[in-house]
């Protein structure tokens, strides 16, 4: 006789009165396939844990975002934010869709160039650009977004040295009603720093001021703040036209759009509460269109959003190492991935699904990673079916920042696969090995031997 499927015995206290009117979210709907590819097969083929990226979701999300802006404004250009996820295969999906590159370091700049992005379509942002990097960007005719006066002066000198006229924008920070104000980057709008930088650029006449850039925050939940920012940036552009009779080629509104993740402490789920692309687009486009530009002089609108474009395309697949009972009776489940590869678990209550079928019985538990560190907590409290050793789980919405901010700490970083439009998985980043870490180390000869 065939034996029945086993499930760990459970007892759960029934409580009258829940934490809030929506109750606890229960995650027992399994995610067995990603884009028709079996989660179990992916883990068998590529090992556990594993990042999986859906090319289909990237393209769908990108098209949704561009549609939201292009139906409201005539000239729109997206630039892929490399720092959000700079695995080359991911970048190239965005470039195939028409995205330029937006980089914040020489390393990222070189990556974009190596990926085949033309130099004049790589936007060079950030406060740290070396002389060599600036010269490379000037020679490539890349738009350089100036962050501070020291950079402005140095770039002016480089322009004289190279006898070239760099294309530049200034980054502008401002009060949009969102606090803290990100005033550490760029020049302030309200106190006149931005105008001071603009005057210096135009009057020294060594640099070509082609754009104005702002980036008001990250994981922004208020589209209206973008409306205020777009109004202030447009005011600067119109002021330049009035004062110097020059038109600005582009306004770059940066990024920072929230994805569908749920911030820790949030009352509602991110998927329900966070603004969508249409809301951000409406705030930004309406502000620029209503600011006073003539229809034939509207600047190109550049968007550098990263998180909202890639987060939903990324999944982290993992395996249960063990279960244990904590001293207060709570169930603890230890997974084979920790905060070292899922940095965003510090900010979000990530949605986590089992990867196999269960009954509808669930248990409150805390999810820990495998690190021998007390901070290694994936979810402080989540309601899941009775997972057992070697069961698999899938973490949702991990495409942004995890594959760039992950740490090689205690364990090695996992492989990354991309599932293509025909449902075929491709390895796009190999699992790290001991030699990939030790190849950068140098051990002095006198430390080579010891006796114990």
């Amino acid at each position: 006789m065939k034996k029945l499927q086993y499930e760990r015995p459970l007892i759960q206290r029934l409580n009258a009165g829940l934490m809030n009117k929506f109750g606890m979210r229960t995650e027992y709907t399994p995610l067995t396939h990603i884009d028709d590819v079996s989660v179990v097969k992916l883990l068998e083929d590529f090992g556990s844990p594993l990042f999986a990226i859906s090319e289909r979701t990237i393209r769908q999300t990108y098209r949704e975002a561009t549609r939201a802006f292009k139906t409201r404004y005539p000239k729109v250009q997206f630039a892929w934010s490399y720092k959000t996820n700079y695995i080359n295969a991911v970048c190239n999906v965005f470039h195939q869709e028409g995205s330029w590159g937006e980089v914040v370091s020489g390393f990222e700049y070189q990556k974009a160039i190596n990926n085949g992005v033309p130099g004049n379509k790589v936007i060079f942002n950030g406060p740290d650009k070396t002389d060599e990097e600036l010269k490379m960007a000037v020679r490539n005719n890349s738009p350089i977004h100036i962050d501070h006066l020291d950079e402005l002066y140095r770039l002016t000198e480089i322009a004289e040295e190279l006898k070239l006229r760099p294309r530049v924008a200034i980054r502008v920070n401002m009060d949009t009603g969102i606090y803290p104000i990100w005033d550490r980057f760029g020049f302030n709008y309200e106190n006149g720093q931005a105008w001071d930088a603009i005057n210096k650029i135009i009057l020294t006449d060594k640099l070509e001021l082609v754009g104005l850039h702002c980036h008001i925050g990250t994981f922004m939940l208020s589209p209206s703040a973008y409306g205020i920012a777009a109004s202030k940036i447009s005011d600067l552009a119109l002021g330049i036209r009035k004062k110097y009779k020059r038109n600005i080629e582009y306004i770059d509104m940066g990024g920072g759009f929230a994805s569908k993740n749920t911030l820790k402490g949030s009352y509602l789920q991110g998927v329900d509460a966070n603004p969508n692309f249409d809301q951000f687009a409406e705030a930004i486009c309406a502000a620029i269109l209503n600011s006073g530009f003539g229809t034939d002089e509207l600047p190109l609108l550049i968007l550098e959003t990263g998180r909202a474009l890639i987060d939903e395309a990324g999944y982290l697949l993992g395996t249960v190492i063990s279960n244990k009972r904590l001293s207060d009776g709570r169930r603890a489940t230890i997974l084979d991935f920790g905060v070292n590869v899922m940095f965003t678990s510090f900010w979000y209550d990530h949605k986590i699904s089992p990867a196999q079928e269960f009954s509808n019985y669930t248990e409150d538990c805390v999810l820990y990673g495998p690190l021998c560190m007390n901070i290694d907590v994936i979810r402080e409290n989540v309601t899941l079916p009775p997972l057992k050793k070697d069961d698999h789980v899938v973490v949702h919405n991990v495409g942004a920042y995890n594959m760039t901010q992950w740490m090689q700490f205690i364990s090695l970083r996992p492989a990354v696969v991309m599932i293509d439009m025909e449902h075929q998985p491709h390895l796009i980043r190999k699992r790290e090995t001991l030699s990939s870490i030790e190849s950068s180390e140098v051990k002095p000869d006198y430390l080579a031997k010891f006796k114990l």
Partner: protein
Amino acid sequence: MIIKKNIALSDTGFVFNPSTGDSFSVNPIGLEILKMLKENKPEEEIKKHLLGKYATDRDTVEKDYYDFTKMLEQVKLTDTDGKEKD
């Protein structure tokens, strides 16, 4: 392990402790174990029953039985403070 005599078990997995007013839900395997404990079945017989009926192994049953019975003690469904009968 002895389960308190006044604990009410329903066939759908609803557990009620009339002396405290606490109620609990158990999954089907949890219910089976609880019923057998109420019938004073010995631990070995319960484990043997689970191994015969379900696709699992002895280590898993040992581990889960220990965890489940500890939870029964913790939620105060056992008699004589959860002390073993023998």
